[in-house]
């Protein structure tokens, strides 16, 4: 027996629909709440403090003269850093940006310093 195109199409569609059910209203509600909470946490204390603390530790550790902290942003005088130093600063920035927003990530990250 060979599958006709339309019956094959129908079979694939049915199998996919059955195996990819729409989420229930409750699951959607929970997911919505989780999403909005996660987004809100981007603006509130833990992240701001975490970044600030990491930045301070960084500054104290190595780049005392050229890197400083301003409103949780790290600023540096680009011209005064050589390529090696600049690469380090960029790596550091990327690591901070890659952090997710739970405090535990901050704790894990801060342990490196």
């Amino acid at each position, binding site marked *: 027996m060979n599958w006709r195109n339309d019956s094959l199409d129908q079979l694939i569609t049915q199998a996919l629909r059955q195996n990819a*059910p729409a989420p229930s209203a409750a699951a959607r509600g929970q997911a919505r709440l989780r999403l*909005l909470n996660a987004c809100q946490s981007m603006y509130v204390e833990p992240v701001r403090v975490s970044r600030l603390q990491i930045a301070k530790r960084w500054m104290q550790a190595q780049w005392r003269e050229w890197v400083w902290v301003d409103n949780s942003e790290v600023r540096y005088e680009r011209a005064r850093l050589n390529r090696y130093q600049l690469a380090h600063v960029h790596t550091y920035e990327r690591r901070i940006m890659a952090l997710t927003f739970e405090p535990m990530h901050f704790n894990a990250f801060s342990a490196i310093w």
Partner: protein
Amino acid sequence: MDSFENLPDALLIERLRADDLEALGGLFDRYYTQVYRAAIAITQDSQAAEDIAQEAFLRVHRYAERIDTSLPLMPWLYRVTVNLSYTWVTRQKKRRVSLEDIVDRLISPSWLAPENLIEHTELQRRVREAIRDLPFNQRVVVVLHYLNGQNLDEIAQILDCPVGTVKSRLHYARETLRRRLDFALWTGELVHELA
């Protein structure tokens, strides 16, 4: 929440740029189901699909400034979903499956979810397995085409590749599925199903 229903995506994204999280909620209400279903169809894992869908909407929030509001949002969301699913699938492949993993999976709530307890017919199980075994690129095209009802042009836009490539992936995927089902029939494994 209801007030967002008739607003276009572009306006919601503009509001999101102004830190109006309810606008993100509006986009979520509009697109979550499609994103979730695409993710679960690709990964065949409900927990992974939830995580992927959440991350997709987090990216809408994170990259709201960069999203081109002159274009519809859904293709952008599908693209993010496909990329996140790809990352998940490749990580799963690399991961060594331990006995503990299997036990965890068997007793996890997602495994016991009502949708997973539905008795699937043998034929549908075969189709699902065959889709799961397709190369990732073909699987994505199948899901977007058959589940999400995207046409070839739309899929090409989502995957950022030529329409011809989409057409050929779909063709090879269908041939593979047809062969797998033919084989199952030929070996008699599906005979009861079709009797």
